[in-house]
Structures are given as structure tokens and as C-alpha cells.
């Protein structure tokens, strides 16, 4: 028995089942679509994150600006009150002196 020729005959190349390459290409196309979609989704996700961060930063800035304005208004009010007190003080001293 010549085992080597038996092996060569038994192990000859065979064609895969009908439609094999179409099935492979369908999987390739699905993978290709998924790969092409990925950058779009990544860009959209990155955009959302950036918008959220920028929005948060802008809101924080606006809050700080309003706090600053309120503090400034309070200081001005305090100065005005103090100023009016200073203006009326000599008059009151004078009145006390005349009594």
C-alpha cells in the first residue's frame, strides 16, 4: 500500500459550499459599515461631551459674573449709606451744639 499517494488523493483541495465567497463578503460589508460608522458616532459623542463641558463652563462663568455684580452693588450701596451718614454727621453735631 502506498500511503503517500493515498494521502495526496484523499487530501486534494475541495471547493467550499456554494455561495461561500458571497457569505464572506456579506460579513466583510457588515464589518466595513460598522467601521465606517464608528468615527461618526465617536465624533458625535465627542461633540456632546464638548458641548456639555462648554455649557457647564459658560453657566459657571455667568454665575460668577452675577455674584460679582451683586457684591459690587452691595459695596456701592454700603458706600452710599456710609456717605450719606458722613454728610449728615456735621449737621447733627451742629444741632447738638446749639441745644
Amino acid at each position, binding site marked *: *500500500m502506498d*500511503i503517500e499517494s493515498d*494521502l495526496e488523493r484523499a*487530501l486534494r483541495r*475541495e*471547493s*467550499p459550499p456554494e455561495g461561500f465567497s458571497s*457569505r464572506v463578503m456579506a460579513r466583510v460589508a457588515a464589518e466595513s459599515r460598522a467601521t465606517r460608522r464608528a468615527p461618526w458616532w465617536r465624533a458625535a459623542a465627542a461633540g456632546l461631551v464638548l458641548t456639555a463641558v462648554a455649557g457647564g463652563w459658560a453657566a459657571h462663568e455667568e454665575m460668577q459674573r452675577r455674584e460679582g455684580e451683586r457684591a459690587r452693588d452691595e459695596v456701592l450701596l454700603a458706600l452710599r449709606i456710609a456717605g450719606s451718614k458722613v454728610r449728615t454727621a456735621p449737621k447733627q453735631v451742629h444741632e447738638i451744639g446749639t441745644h
Partner: protein
Amino acid sequence: MTAIAPTANGLDALERARAGDHDAFAELVEEHEAMVFSIAFHFFNDRGRAEEIAQDVFLQMYRSVGTIESRSHLVFWLRQVTSRRCIDHIRRTRLRAVSIDDIHELTGANEFRDSLLDRKVRHLIAELPEHQRVIVTLRYQEDLDPSEICRIVNLPVNTVKSHLHRALQSLRKKLGDQ
């Protein structure tokens, strides 16, 4: 070995596939499908499992086509990846050599095409240890010598020769007994 087949625009299918051309990739699949499918089929003796492995190999090729340098590198790469996937698959699942599908297949259309001896030989190969199976397949299906096989299976050439020798001894004994 497959010859380079340039097209009208001067680029061969591999170059075009590397550039993202799906038609060129399909040409490569059709050119090499019999080799890849047959390595897996002779390893498992199961057409369904062989198709599953062969599809996975070509999908991996699609992902790695940019790293493949030439037509000869592609053939080497396909043989190597198919052999590795077959061995990994059998180690993961520890399948029986012959599945229910094969029993159906033996009594199906292929019965008339294959001689009884061919089927017996393939059945006995599928019972060999995994490295022996791959080495026998690469030796007799792909007509490679041990120095080429050792690069594909990443084993020393003397180990390949020894696996081949033991596989032939085992097959001779089993075929003689039957």
C-alpha cells in the same frame, strides 16, 4: 504558488484590496477559498465547521490586509492563520473527530464522489493529534516540505519531521488493521 494577476489599471488584486476595494478583496477570497476551506475540512472532517473557520480566516484577512506585503506572503499568512485557528478551535472545544453532520455527509451526495478509501483516510487523519493533523494536511494537500511547514506551524524542523513520521506510522497501522 499563485501568479500575480495585474488588472487593466496596472494594480493587482492585493494592492487594490489594500486600498479598500471590496471587489478586489472578493477576487482574493475566490482565489484562495479552496485552499483555506480544505485545510480546515481535512483538519475537522466536517464541512460546516470548515466553512465557519474559513469565513473567520477571511474576515481576519480583511482586517489585516494592510499588513500583507505580497502574494506569496498572503498564501503563507492564510496557511498559518488557518492552521492556528483549527488548532485553537479544537483545543477550546475538544470536539469529537466525526460529528453527526459528517455521518449525514458520508451517506449523502459526496458518497459517490469520494472513494471509500479517501473517506477512511480523512476520518483517520481527523483522529490524529492536532499538530500531526495540520502537518499531514500541509504536507499532502499543499505539497509543502518540512522546512516550509515548520515556518507555518512555528515548530523546529526536526519536530515537524518527527510529527510527520509518527502520523504516517499511525495511519499505516490503522489502515492495515481495517
